[in-house]
């Protein structure tokens, strides 16, 4: 398993994540930008992501639903601001209702995702910026939505995964 490098910069309201994938930048780019592929990996198990609409253009949006095992539905919306084919894209990611009206209670995020060819495939750098330190802390504590990630894990499983990450 590849190693994920995760850094928090709380004063600057940023999270940095770096991860290598064993595929060419063209293929990794497809997986990040085509909704049929995003639906296959964007949600953590046992949740699933379902796209309602996708317009991958500058100013376009991806609206999707995170569906839980007990029929929970969390709607989210990405607005693409800048696209540099196969190199990088950036945009906002926010919680919204089923009509796409953005939530004012839940923190919004600004994502910059960059793709670089690397020895074994592609290195993806993700920089996530929050509106406020408060928002960053909220996300870090909640893991997006209560129980999303943390509820499905017991500590042993979690630690095993964390050990794998480090390997």
């Amino acid at each position, binding site marked *: *398993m590849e190693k994920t490098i995760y850094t928090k910069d709380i004063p600057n309201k940023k999270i940095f994540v770096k991860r290598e*994938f064993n595929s060419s930048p063209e293929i990794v780019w497809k*997986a990040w930008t085509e909704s049929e592929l995003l639906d296959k990996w964007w949600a*953590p198990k046992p949740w699933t992501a379902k796209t309602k609409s996708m317009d991958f253009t500058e100013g376009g949006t991806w609206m999707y639903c995170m569906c839980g095992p007990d029929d929970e539905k969390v709607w989210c919306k990405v607005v693409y601001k800048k696209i540099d084919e196969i190199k990088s894209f950036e945009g906002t990611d926010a919680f919204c209702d089923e009509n796409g009206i953005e939530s004012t209670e839940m923190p919004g995020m600004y994502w910059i995702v960059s793709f670089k060819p690397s020895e074994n495939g592609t290195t993806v750098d993700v920089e996530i910026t929050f509106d406020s330190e408060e928002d960053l802390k909220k996300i870090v504590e909640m893991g*997006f939505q209560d129980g999303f990630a943390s509820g499905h894990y017991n500590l042993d499983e979690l*630690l095993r995964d964390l050990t794998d990450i480090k390997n």
Partner: protein
Amino acid sequence: MRRDIFQGIADPVRREIILMIANKNSLNVNSVAERFDISRPAVSKHLKILGECGLIKFTQSGRERFCELELVKMKEVSDWIDPFMILLNERFNNLDNVLSDLNKKSKNINSKTKK
């Protein structure tokens, strides 16, 4: 042998030792051993591993040995046990699977076009 913070916290006894020391700031090595049903040498071995992983440090005070948590290292642990990190990591593991399917498909297409 691998010695890092995750090796340190991979074992339930060691996690319990960490919590025990965290509650007291500093703990006599003998009193750690007394609280477990397992043998003293087994506890010593766990303490030794925790020391090698950099999660605890030992100090000698007269005839007694004390252990303390290495807070910087513990922070490294807490940075990793972060639900957001776990979410991203799950996503990325899913993505690995999607990519390996895509890679297979693109290889198939390539081999078909070659034929």
